[in-house]
Structures are given as C-alpha cells and as structure tokens.
C-alpha cells in the first residue's frame, strides 16, 4: 500500500515526460496525485489511531550486504506529514498553469519530489531514508534552477551545496550508527536501532553530526543561510513545496532519529537545544521585522517557526511531541498559503516590495479576497486562537514550559514579534490607499482562489476542531516520549509546584 504512494507519482512523472503537451501533462499529474490523495485518505481511515507503532509495514530484502532493506511503515508522526505532502502537491499542480515554460518537466520533477518526500517519511530503514532524502534533492535543485527568478542559479547552487552537506552528514551519521550497532553485520533497520544502547560518548558525537545535518535542512540558526535566498528566488509553486514540505524533513529527522536513537545524549543536551530553539525563534522574528520583501519576510518567519519544533522535541514529553507534529503540519499549511497568496500578489501587482505595495484591500480595484486571506494567514501564523497555528503553538508551550520555562517564555515573546511583522506586512500591503495611477491589476479568477480557499478552510477547521489534527500523533508521541522519559522522570502536567524552576 505504502509503495503505491511512492510508485504512482514516479509512474506519473514518467508519463508526464512522454506526453505531447502541458495540458495533458497537467491532467496526468493531477490524476496521479488525486489517486494518491484518495489512497492516503484510505490509509488514514484504516490507520489504528490508538497504536503508536509502525503500521502498514512493508519489508523487502534489497542489498543484504550493506543492510539496506526496502522497508516502509507509518506511524502517527509520518501519517500527518504524508497527508500534508499529498495535499500541498495536489494544490500546487492544481494551481499550475499548463501553458507555462517547460510545463511537462516541471510537473514531472514535482511528482518526483512528492515521491521522494513520501519515501523519506515512510522509510523504516535509515539507509533507505537517506536515499530518499538525497533523491528529493535533485528535482528540487532543478525546480529552483530552471523556474526560479533572477538570481536562481546562485540560490540553487547554494541550496544544493548546503543540502548536499546535510545529506553527507546524515549518511555518515547513519553509517556510523549502523556499524556501532553491528552484530556482526551492520544493521540499519530503524526499529532494531531503537533497541540498541550506544555508549553516551558515541551517542553525543553521532547526535551532533546528525543535529547539524538535519539542522541545515530544518533550518536552525545559524545553518539557515541558504533558506531566504532559496525561498525568494523560487517560483511560487517551488516555494510552497520548499516551505510547506521540505523544511519538515529536517524537523522530522530531529524527531524521528536524533531524539529516540540517542536518548541519553539528547537528554543531556536538551536544555541547550531548548535554548537554541528559543533563540532561533527570536532571531527569525527579529530578522523578519527588518525585511522589505514580503517573500523574504515570510522566509524568515519560517525560520522562527521551525524553531518551535526544536523546543518541543527538546522538552520531549507526550504533550510537547504532539505539539511538534502539529506544528509541522500547521506550519506547512500556513506557509503554503502565505507563499501562494504572495505569489498571487506578485503575479497581479508585479512587486513584492512592502514599500511599494499599498491598499490591496480596496474592494473594487484591489485584491480584496486575497487581502482578506492574507490577513487570515498572517494571523494564523502569529498564533491567533481559532486557527490551526494557535493549537500547535499552545500545546508546544504548555508541553515545554514545565521542563524549560525560560525558552518557552522566549518562544511566547517570539509570537508577539511574529504579530509585529505581520502587522507591518498587512498594514503596508492590504491597508492604505491604492495608487490610482497604477491600480490596473488583473482580476484573480475563481480557479486561482481555490487552492487558497482550500488551505484556509483547513486552517480554520483544524483550528476550531483541533482533535482532527492532534489525535493522529497522540499514541506515537506517548511511545516516543518513553524513549527518554525513563531518564527524565517527568510528566507534563500536574506537577507539584516544587518542581518548577522558574527562578
């Protein structure tokens, strides 16, 4: 079943390359993605929500010599992310203009990236994960380098170098893990690695290697420098893919591998990681305030928001881990919506400069619906209740607070700064007076609104009815928190007050 999720897009990519024009290619890709979306829904329906372990497992021997198996499985961490992957890719293809430049190749690469992401999220063999992780790099590189804007080659190369370094570090880390766990053959099976106890020194070194590897991808400050350039230079579709999905791969790695494989080292480093997360949140927010380009602002906001996940994983209790997974999904939805709307603004108005844009909320000659949705997505990102961002952030805060009060308070302050830059953004772009001489913008068609409306509906729905988001990962979070909870001996809530160290 899971293999189908990977194979169908790959098959689709092949067909897309063979057909004669973009329109057919778009239909084919949309069909493929619709099939996998339905399959994902089916899987979600069959998924046992109370079971925190891998389900739908598939294992085939592949290269025994080096311990590489083709083994897949999903649990409460990967299922929401796979769902997010399918949804966002579907929306990207739906919104894609079939007549644009080299449409067939674009769609094919997008489908490949989709397959790579699904593969990475579903792998239960660390080597297989690395293969998918590297595999998805190539289509993304091309997507940036071919369809990007002016400085696309610089951005694509920067992305390639950074991500390749990250890939190499992860490969090195995983090879070392496999060899240390060897008895006598190296093993890369995730579940058997989970039950291997490494010496603390080894754990620490390997954790640091993987932390940098996944930290580049997430990205964590100061390893983020590829991100603003890449996001800004990418086309709207690629930016949605990068911001909505790819960044999650790094955070996923932290949660899936770094924390449970090296519990002792993780527990020792956790205070620093939490602080790192808190600082990253503030750094991303402060830097975003100073930006003049909307897309760049959103890019920096993303840096801040990914750091919430680090904080949540560092706190490592059931509540905060649910918060981490929810934050990945909610951030994916919100960021995809933001990039999509910024794309519309750029396409219709022709600029992304905060100092030039003005008065888009004008009901007659502006972009009223787009502005309204922009306000909504900005507020969702700033954590206004009733929208999905709040749920994820609040659970993260409540979960992290008992262990790390100071970084949590930094994170809450960070949401305040998030509000600052979104208010700047909204005041400058949506509010204000439309310039009568230049305001001859093309209308936003109904079809163009659909992806934004779908994402908005999800953001509101999951914000009002959070259990539809969080219940997927609850059981798995319980399981995962037990990998280190034995050391911590802490439960998330209802502590007696003596355990709170706020001073």
């Amino acid at each position: 079943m899971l293999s189908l999720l990977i194979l169908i897009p790959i098959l689709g990519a092949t067909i897309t390359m063979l057909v004669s024009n973009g329109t057919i290619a778009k239909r084919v890709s949309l069909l493929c993605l619709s099939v996998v979306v339905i399959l994902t829904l089916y899987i979600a329906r069959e998924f046992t929500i109370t079971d925190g372990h891998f389900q739908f497992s598939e294992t085939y021997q592949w290269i025994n010599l080096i311990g590489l198996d083709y083994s897949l499985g999903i649990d409460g961490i990967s299922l929401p992310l796979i769902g997010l992957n399918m949804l966002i890719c579907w929306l990207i293809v739906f919104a894609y203009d079939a007549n644009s430049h080299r449409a067939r190749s674009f769609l094919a690469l997008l489908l490949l990236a989709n397959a790579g992401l699904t593969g990475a999220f579903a792998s239960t063999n660390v080597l297989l994960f690395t293969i998918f992780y590297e595999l998805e790099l190539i289509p993304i590189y091309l997507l940036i380098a071919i369809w990007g804007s002016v400085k696309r080659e610089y951005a694509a190369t920067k992305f390639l170098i950074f991500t390749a370094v990250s890939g190499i570090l992860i490969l090195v880390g995983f090879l070392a893990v496999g060899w240390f766990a060897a008895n006598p053959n190296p093993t890369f099976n995730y579940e058997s690695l989970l039950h291997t106890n490494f010496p603390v020194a080894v754990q620490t070194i390997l954790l640091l290697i993987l932390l940098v590897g996944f930290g580049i991808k997430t990205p964590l400050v100061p390893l983020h420098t590829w991100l603003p350039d890449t996001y800004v230079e990418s086309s709207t579709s690629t930016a949605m893919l990068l911001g909505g999905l790819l960044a999650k791969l790094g955070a996923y790695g932290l949660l899936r591998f770094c924390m449970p494989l090296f519990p002792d080292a993780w527990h020792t480093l956790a205070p620093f990681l939490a602080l790192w997360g808190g600082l990253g949140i503030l750094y991303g927010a402060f830097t975003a305030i100073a930006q003049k380009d909307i897309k760049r602002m959103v890019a920096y906001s993303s840096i801040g928001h990914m750091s919430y996940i680090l904080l949540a994983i560092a706190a490592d209790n059931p509540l905060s881990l649910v918060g981490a997974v929810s934050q990945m999904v909610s951030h994916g939805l919100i960021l995809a919506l933001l990039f999509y709307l910024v794309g519309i603004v750029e396409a219709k108005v022709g600029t992304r400069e905060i100092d030039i844009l003005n008065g888009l909320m004008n009901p007659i000659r502006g972009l009223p619906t787009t502005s309204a949705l922009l306000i909504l997505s900005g507020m969702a990102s700033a954590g206004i209740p009733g929208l999905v961002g709040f749920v994820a952030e609040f659970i993260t805060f409540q979960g992290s607070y008992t262990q790390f009060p100071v970084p949590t308070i930094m994170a809450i302050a960070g949401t305040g700064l998030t509000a600052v830059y979104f208010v700047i953004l909204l005041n400058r772009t949506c509010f204000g007076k439309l310039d009568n001489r230049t305001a001859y913008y093309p209308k936003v068609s109904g079809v163009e609104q659909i992806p934004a409306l779908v994402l908005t509906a999800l953001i509101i729905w999951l914000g009002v009815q959070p259990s539809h988001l969080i219940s997927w990962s609850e059981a798995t979070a319980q399981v995962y928190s037990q990998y280190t909870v034995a050391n911590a001996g802490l439960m998330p809530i209802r502590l007696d007050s003596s355990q709170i160290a706020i001073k």
Partner: protein
Amino acid sequence: MLQAVNQGLLDTIWLIPIYSLLGAALSLIWMPSLTRRTGPRPAGYVNLVMTLLSFLHGLLALQAIWGQPPLHWQVNWFSVAGLDFLIPWEISSLTVGATTLITGLNFLAQVYAVGYLEMDWGWARFYSLLAFFEAGMCALVFTDSLFIAYVILELLTLGTYLLVGMWYNQPLVITGARDAFLTKRVGDLFLLMGVVALLPLAGTWNFDELAEWAKTASLDPAVITLVGLALLAGPMGKCAQFPLHLWLDEAMEGPLPSTILRNSVVVATGAWVLYKLQPVLLLSPVVQSVMIFVGSATALGATLIAIAQIDIKRILSYSVSAYMGLIFVAVGTGHTQEGLLLILSHGMAMAVLVMSVGSVITNCITQDVTQLGGLFSRRPITALSFLVGTWGMVGLPPLGNSWVFQSLVSQLWYEQRGLAFLILIVNGLTAFSLMRLFGLIFLGKPQQMTERSPEPLWLIVLPMTVGAGVTLHIPHLLFSWQIVNDWTVFTKHSGIALVMSSLVGLGLGLYLYGNTNIMKPVRLPSIKLQDFFAYDFYTPKLYKGTVVGFVDLFSRFADWCDRHLIDGASNLFGLATIFSGESLKYTTFGQLQLYVLTTVVGIVVLFLLLK
C-alpha cells in the same frame, strides 16, 4: 408550562453567542460583488435581527434564572496527552445579565450605525465585526475557564485591529489599528505566559477551582508574583491602563458606532477577567499593590489627560481608562461587588455620552471641541442625553455611580484613606472634564461649524434617548435587585464628601466653560504642564524610546548580522573555495621533473619529521 419554557431557555442559553456568530457569518456574505448588487444595507439588517434575537433570549433567560442557583456544565473542546481543554459554562443571573447588557448595547449601537454610517459601503465588514465582538464578549462572560477567556481576549484583539482599521485608507487609522493590536497583544501574551505557567501550579484553569485552590495554596512567593504579574498584564492591556493605555486613544480613529461598544463594554472584558482572577492575583501582595497602583495612577493620570484634550472622542476615551483604573482599585482592595456595578453603570453612562457626541459629530463634521459651541438651543435632545450621561458617570445621587463611589469611599476610608481621596478626586475631575466638554459643545456662542446643526436622523436619536432612559433607571434596578436599599448613606460623611466633590467639579466646569466672559482656551499657569497632559504624558515618545525603539534597532541589527556575518561566512567560504581552486590550478604546470622534485622534497621532509 412556564417552567418548561424557562428550562428550555436555559438549556439553549449557549445559543446566545451562536446567534451573534451566525449574524457575523451572514453579514460576511455581502462581499463586494453582492454589495454591488444589493447595496450594503441588508448586511446590517440581518445582523440587527440576530442581535435582537440574542438580546430577547438573554432577557427571557434572565427572568428564568433569577433567584436560581447558578448552572454549570462543561463541554470538552479537545484533549491531548491527558490534558483536557474544557469549555465550562457558568449560567447565573450575573452572567446572563451581563450578556443582556452586551447584546442590548450592541443592538443600540447597531441601530445607531444604520443612521451614522448611512453613506458607508463597508457595512458587511462593520456589522460582522460588531457581531463578532458581541459573540466573543457573551462567550467570555459565560465561560468559567481562564484558558477560554484568554482565547477570547486574543480573538477580540484581532477584532479590534480589524474594527479600528475599518477605514483603512487613512494613515491615522492604519497606525491606530496597528497600535491597538500590538498593545493589546503585548498584554495578551503576558496573559498567555500566565495561563501556561498557572496550569502546572494549580492543575486547573477553571475560575471556580482556581479560587478554591487559591484558598489553600502555599507557593514560592517569587513564582506566584511573576505568574500574577503576567496574568495582570492581560486585563491591563484590555482596560487601557498605564502604560498600555495609548491604544484606546488611537482607536478613536475607528467608526464612532463601534466606539459605543468599545468604550462601554469591550474595555470591560479586561475588568471581567480581573474580577474572575482576583483570588489568584491576591495570592501575592506585590501583585495586589501593583494592581492598585496601576489602577490609581491610570485613574488620576487619564482624567488629567482627558481635561487637556480637544478631540471629543479622546476626552471620553481617557475617562474610560480612568474608570477602568477605578475598577482595578476596587478589585485590588477586595471590593469586587463595587467593581462589577461600576462596569454596569459606567458602561451605560459612557454609551450615552459617546452616542450623544456622535450625534454632534455626525452633522457638525468636526471632532475638535474648539470649533464647536452654542448647540444647546439647536440640539436639546442631544444636550439632555449628554447631561444624563454625565450624571450617570459622576457620583451624584441617585444615578448608578453614586452608589458605587459612596460604598467604596465609606469602606476605603477606614482601610486605605489615600484611595478614598483618590476616588473623590477622580470623581471631581471627571465631573469637571465632562462639564467642560458640555460647555464647549453646547454652551457659548455658535461657531461656523455649529451654525446649522439640527438633531440628526431618528436612527441616531432613538438609541441615544433609549440609552439615557436606561441610565436613568439604573437606580431602580439596583433597588429592585436589593443591592442598595438605603437612601440615608448620602447623609453620611462619605456621601456628603462625594456629592460635594461632584458638585465642585460640575460647578467649576460650568463656571469656566459656560461663561462667555472667560477666554477660551482656558490655560494652566504652566504651558509645559499643560503640554505634558495634552500630549498624553509623552507616552508615544516613551514607547518610541523604549520598546518600539528596541525592537526596531534590534531587528536591524539581527538583519545586519544575518546578511553580513552568517550569510557572509557562507559566501566567504564559497569565495575561499573558488580562490584556492583558482590559485591551485597554477600548480598544474606539466613539467615531470618538477613533480618528481616535489615528491622527493616531500618524502625527505616526512623522513626528517619521523626522526
């Protein structure tokens, strides 16, 4: 039969916020495209119907719950990892009564807006936001959970941003909306810190259980002080208390009908949360002192500022801050009953005041009091309503605030005499300030802007007079609820002092501003002092010099670091790679002898090192 109806009304009480939400959703259907076809008005009418519905439901339910014990029930919103996010409801005569106040005032404000915003195209946005506020406030009074209260306060902050930003074309509106949002958000986020920190300590967010817990809690004083201060910041932001008060002044750029609601009940949301949180806040003496200090500083300072303003709406808005400050004092000193009554009587009186100045603004076009005057003969209804509002605000029997102030003064006289004086002074100054406003608008000679100024459309006059009528009937309500029953309190020292302070304020105001022989504007002896009040204690500069300046500077600094240090390091690495590659390529010169020589030298060096 009646019992069944009453039971049904109470069982469906949760519909009250839902009607309003539904109204908000219905209004939103009038997007620009539909508005072009039908005009903007239907959006307002549907909302009026929904608001009337929730008002009537509330009124009937109030009859049903009167004298009954409070009902409690709770709904599970969601639970995660053993933590339940509950929505507990508390249905008592107090909460149902509060919703009728809210929905009633909102109904008046909406009727008023039909007249006031006659020519506006943004009805859909405006009415749906008013309905959103109504829903939020009704849900806030019904809920018994700090967490849900926080959620609602945060949502109302967003509502304020959109409502103040209604006329988003104007630069002052944009900055006003921004400042309102950010200032309130600062308060909200401190409140969020408090909410997050309180759960591990108390194990609950329910106000009832928190009060129980507070009775026996023994905590590290430092912890509970920090938590208490964080919790206090939320109400401070909502109630526009120093130093988070500037937003209310700037929010006056929004449409006037929304000001009716804002100045009367929206600001009181903070006071309500304060009242609910009182047992927790009083756990720490530091928090208690801060609460009283902030309240009294705001009460006195804002009243003084109000006297120095020339914008009608701003004069009123500072009085709102001041009265909220008095509520802080009342709650901080343990007089919650008086605090609650103050919400009611101040809310009604302030609504009438705002409606009557709105009635002036709507056809005199200006908000600047120096351009008004001599309206009494032209606008008797408005003038009388304004006087009723003034009467309701100050401590002059028998209207609402006189009972509250008398009770506070007589009790505080023995507890903290300074605060009793403070209330007398604030009362006197408010009386002066409102009479000044009255004199400037209605007395004196007509000016250009007021020459032709008839009473406006009945849609504006009607809600105003109805509001005035309700204000006049508040003592009747107080008597029938048996909250007060004794007229003789006004013959006690405290009562006499209170009446004296009101009369002195009113008389002085009338003398200075009703008298054409006295030069306007009346000046303080020191121009510096006058500017200090007129420019709002220079708070904008204070903000700019501290928080705003810091965020601005630090964000630039972070951006600079990001561009030059972090990105610079990676670019430098790239450059270094290219440079070393470029230079190393010259080592490939192709002469075999030199390669051999290099190898030999290398081996020799290695051998030497080995030794």
